[in-house]
């Protein structure tokens, strides 16, 4: 039986990139279907009814949601070519730990990119840089997080690289100045076909940001009303990002100022 593999995705998504890379690493042919997140397709809503978000991997009609879960699924379903997770249980645990850590960078990034200028943005930048430095320390002088082999943790983090230019522009800082080894590592990763094919164009991502900022305000208002029925309940609200669900914390936090009618 020929495998049918479909990926519902959104081109700039840091999470979709992970799944694309994993599929490319395994040389799996797949149909990429670009999603309009302002106008979600019937297929997306059917395949991810819980979160209604991309990426969604559909293998022979069965959906798998959440990017790191998809990466493990791909590794387990097509185990022979280019293993993604190590075979040793302890090393696998370390890889999963760092994968989970990388996802915890999202709240900081949310504040940096979409937060209120000033204190909130600065706090987001600080959080992101601190965490990136921990990752840099973990990488050390190795070629990849997996050692000599490109693997799970590399895949988990490299998706963010497509957004580095945007982070730097909006955060007004240099990632290379803070974490030179991470930039060197990223450049090594980009030399891999799977990564080069999958990463979005950094310039196009940065150009997209003002448009996304406008859209997020509209989406935020709608989701607030849906979740709480009260537009003024802005503290620690779960915000529906365009891509992944929140990871143990709010993704993007707005203060009362940005929620006022004038702001929306």
């Amino acid at each position: 039986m020929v495998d049918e593999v479909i990926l519902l995705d959104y081109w700039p998504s840091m999470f979709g990139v992970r799944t694309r890379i994993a599929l490319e690493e395994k040389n799996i042919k797949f149909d990429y279907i670009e999603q309009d997140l302002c106008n979600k397709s019937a297929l997306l809503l059917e395949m991810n009814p819980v979160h209604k978000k991309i990426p969604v991997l559909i293998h022979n009609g069965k959906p798998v949601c959440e990017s790191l879960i998809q990466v493990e699924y791909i590794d387990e379903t097509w185990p022979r070519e280019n293993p993604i997770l190590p075979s040793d249980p302890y090393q696998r645990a370390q890889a999963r730990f760092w994968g989970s850590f990388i996802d915890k960078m999202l709240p900081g990034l949310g504040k940096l990119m979409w937060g209120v200028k000033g204190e909130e943005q600065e706090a987001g930048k600080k959080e992101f840089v601190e965490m990136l430095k921990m990752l840099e320390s973990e990488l050390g002088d190795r070629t990849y997080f997996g050692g000599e082999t490109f693997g799970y943790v590399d895949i988990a983090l490299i998706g963010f690289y497509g957004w580095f230019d945007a982070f730097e522009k909006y955060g007004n800082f240099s990632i290379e100045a803070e974490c030179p080894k991470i930039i060197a590592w990223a450049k090594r990763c980009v030399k891999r076909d799977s990564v080069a094919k999958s990463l979005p164009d950094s310039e196009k991502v940065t150009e997209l940001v003002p448009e996304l900022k406008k859209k997020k305000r509209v989406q935020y208002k709608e989701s607030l009303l849906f979740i709480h029925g009260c537009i003024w309940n802005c503290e620690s609200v779960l915000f529906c990002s365009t891509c992944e669900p929140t990871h143990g914390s709010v993704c993007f936090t707005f203060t009362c100022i940005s929620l006022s009618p004038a702001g929306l």
Partner: protein
Amino acid sequence: MAERSEEVKLLGMWASPFSRRVEIALTLKGLPYEFSEQDIANKSPLLLQSNPVHKMIPVLLHNGKPISESLVILEYIDDTWQHNQILPQDPYDKAIARFWARFVDEQIYVTAMKVVGKVGEERDAAVEATRDLLKLMEKELVGKDFLGGESLGFVDIVATLVAFWLMRTEEVVGVKVVPVEMFPEIHRWVKNLLDVDVIKKCIPPEGEHLNYIRARMDSLKLKSV
């Protein structure tokens, strides 16, 4: 069974759902382990050294090597001791189990915390939001004895957070977040869990647990019943 001597130590906390789920897994596998109660307010050098990144429990030490994060620990236990499997074998079923485990921890837990942490209208909103999430779990239980199917599995172990923490907090907070009329399947599932020896053995004793929750809320200056 391994031939060399296995040293398994758990740095945990008796009232933590994340620590208890590791104990459930170790007990299901019949693995002897040393439990070391940690004082979170006054973290031990061993804890700080074993989990320098997050400085949190639970941490599993296997022959001295630390593993942190409860979901990572559960998978490590299943990968290392392969009898009495906790996760399904089939990659698709495994992916679904992992999805629901993350749903419990990242959605239900985060939202339910606000029931405890907020008051008035904000608490009402949190109760509504938690119920919306639990309705999805309710649907998953239709026609099944456990979230894992016929027997206790990965998602059940993770979801003990709902059965024995969220539902116990109802008593202390004075709000029925999970009424039986709305969630008959969840209530049936909790009864099924209580019939399982390992669960009975590994969950915190109810009286002590409720007292602990009340004391925590008082110390955080939150209203308790």
